[in-house]
């Protein structure tokens, strides 16, 4: 039985890990919840965020500039994707956007290797954040603490945007009853364009934030996309709160399993998902009837 400080350290680690899961999943959840589009290219866009980050860092020598511009670049790509590719698929089977984005992800992953080579790239955090902070019960990387701050800021921003602005109101109404919103004379296609751009920008942000912890390499989005799917399914598709709760839950589960039974850590994510789905039909906070 590990001692108290190790246990405390592990729980704290699980908390931060959970926040990272939330960050990875939030872009996917937004697009799915508000457009019922399953964006399988989420992992590839995450990866692009990291690569664009390296590119910007090389030219501007500023991590902060890269942090702001890289997600914007990925978001712009997302806008193009929605406008010219995904938009053609509305009204068809809901599996089609999933399949299309899967095909696109193949192109993006290989394309990155063609442009930047097969060896990955390195992305360093700013000097100020490179060290570890002594929290008493453990030494914890300053960068991860910074990450938590960013994630909380993003979540607060999203909450305010969706809950307190007019556009946010339209977005929420549009997900609940698109027909009615159109009947009220509002052009939903512009809204969905915006939402897709926002969701993909969030994926890109996650990528450049993950870069200093993992490096930038073409396959980095492959496992991440499956994990993000699990998080939003457990949380309930369509619910941002669900994504946050699920992310934190899974983070703790993985953290504690790694401490006690490391061999099972990999499969626990799927076990949790299976258990939750069998007990609660639409995930923890999901709305019944959404994509069933």
């Amino acid at each position, binding site marked *: 039985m590990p001692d108290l400080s190790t246990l405390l*350290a*592990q729980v704290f*680690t699980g908390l931060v890990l959970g926040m*990272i899961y939330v960050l990875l999943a939030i872009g996917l959840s937004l697009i799915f919840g508000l457009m019922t589009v399953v964006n399988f290219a989420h992992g590839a866009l995450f990866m692009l965020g990291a690569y664009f980050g390296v590119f910007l860092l090389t030219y501007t020598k500023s991590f902060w500039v890269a942090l702001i511009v890289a997600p914007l670049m990925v978001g712009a790509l997302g806008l193009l994707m929605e406008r010219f590719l995904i938009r053609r698929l509305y009204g068809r089977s809901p599996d089609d956007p999933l399949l299309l984005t899967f095909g696109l992800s193949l192109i993006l992953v290989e394309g990155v290797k063609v442009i930047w080579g097969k060896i990955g790239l390195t992305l360093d955090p700013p000097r100020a954040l490179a060290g570890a902070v002594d929290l008493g019960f453990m030494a914890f*990387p300053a960068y991860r603490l910074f990450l938590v701050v960013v994630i909380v800021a993003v979540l607060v921003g999203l909450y305010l945007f969706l809950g307190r602005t007019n556009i946010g109101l339209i977005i929420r109404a549009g997900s609940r009853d698109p027909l009615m919103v159109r009947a009220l004379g509002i052009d939903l296609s512009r809204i969905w364009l915006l939402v897709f751009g926002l969701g993909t920008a969030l994926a890109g942000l996650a990528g450049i934030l*993950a870069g200093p912890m993992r*490096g930038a390499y073409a396959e980095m989005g492959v496992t991440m996309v499956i994990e993000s799917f699990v998080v939003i399914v457990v949380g309930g598709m369509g619910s941002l709160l669900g994504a946050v709760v699920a992310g934190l839950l899974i983070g703790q589960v993985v953290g504690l399993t790694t401490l006690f039974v490391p061999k099972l850590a990999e499969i626990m994510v799927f076990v949790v998902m299976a258990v939750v789905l069998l007990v609660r039909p639409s995930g923890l906070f999901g709305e019944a009837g959404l994509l069933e």
Partner: protein
Amino acid sequence: MDRRSFLATTAAGAAALSFPAILRAQSKDVLRIGFPLPLTGPFGALAADQQRGATLAMDELNAKGGVLGRKVEVLFRDDQLKPAVGAQRTKELIENDQVQFVVGGLAAHVQMAINEQTKKSKVLFISVSQSDEISAKPDTSPLTFHEALNPTITSRAVGNWIAQNLGKKWWIIYADYAWGKQNNMVLQEVLAKQGGTLLGSTPYPLGSAEFSAHLPKIQGAKPEVLVSMTPGADNIAFLKQVQSYGMKKTMRIAQPLHWLPQLKEGGPDLYADIYGGTSFYWELEENVPSAKQYVEIYRKKYNAPPGDYGAYAFSGVMEVARGCTLAKSFDSEAVADALRKNPTYDHYKGKQWWRTCDNKSFQDLWIVKGREPGKTKGEWGLAEIVTKIPANEELDRTCKEKGLA
């Protein structure tokens, strides 16, 4: 043109191109060597190195008139790091392209699938990547040769050195699959023999980029040395995270293998003072004559120094050529016997030899460590040689232990 007609025309065109309407005249006067390797997938960079090494060997042989008067041709096929694809491509190479020999493979599990095909078709296979099983029962065969190092040799060599030079209180973290598990087992045996203490040993899922959940426990245990089996991209993520937790300051870090692409990707900031083993490092050109020669021809052709996997591939192809020349034949069994009867060779780093009972190549390996930023030599001088571990049959399991008497 409607969709249907477009599709029909395209399909007809594509079908015409793919049907073997004109049978390619398989020239009888060529020595064909099949080479499956993972050109796509996470180890593409290492596979590219393998391809360059093998191509270099092919060019060198052809420049000297080929083998027994025949031109040498190496046929590369993408195995996508998947055993099923590797087996399929090997089948095609043997049946369609009529290769006489197969050299190749990067991942252990793909090698074994390739080996099943070559055994079935009685074609000589020289495996050029790490695997403990390939030279043991039930996988090995009189036609299965293993050019590369394996986890047992590597971990015994590196493990012994670490225990004697860096510290005797270890924590081991390893990728939870065959290679990781084998290294873990051997390292633990070595540590015990050296009278050291194992503070803990943790598996992690291969391909995972997130190590934070493992680190608090390791930090708490305060090992002298953290030994890691974290291949490929995992290596970078692991070292970055370990560094961010400040762990590089409180413990030494070592791994059984260093890979040149990873050293390049991570850079000296990350790899400074990290120890690892390697079968080959290009700075050996300074001390070893055959290395000097090899590095020179490689550099001339590719403008960059060679890595270890490329060197294995080079050696593998050269051995096929040497075997044919000795046997005066292209028959796999004759060549295999010739290699066993004349087991010593030196293509790029010093004396190597085949052990008769298991067709295992014994060779020198080196301990290297990452150079600090500012101390690197040019773009590729990222590591520094610490010591040589000379070839020694005692580093591997005995043939009896492998199930071969």
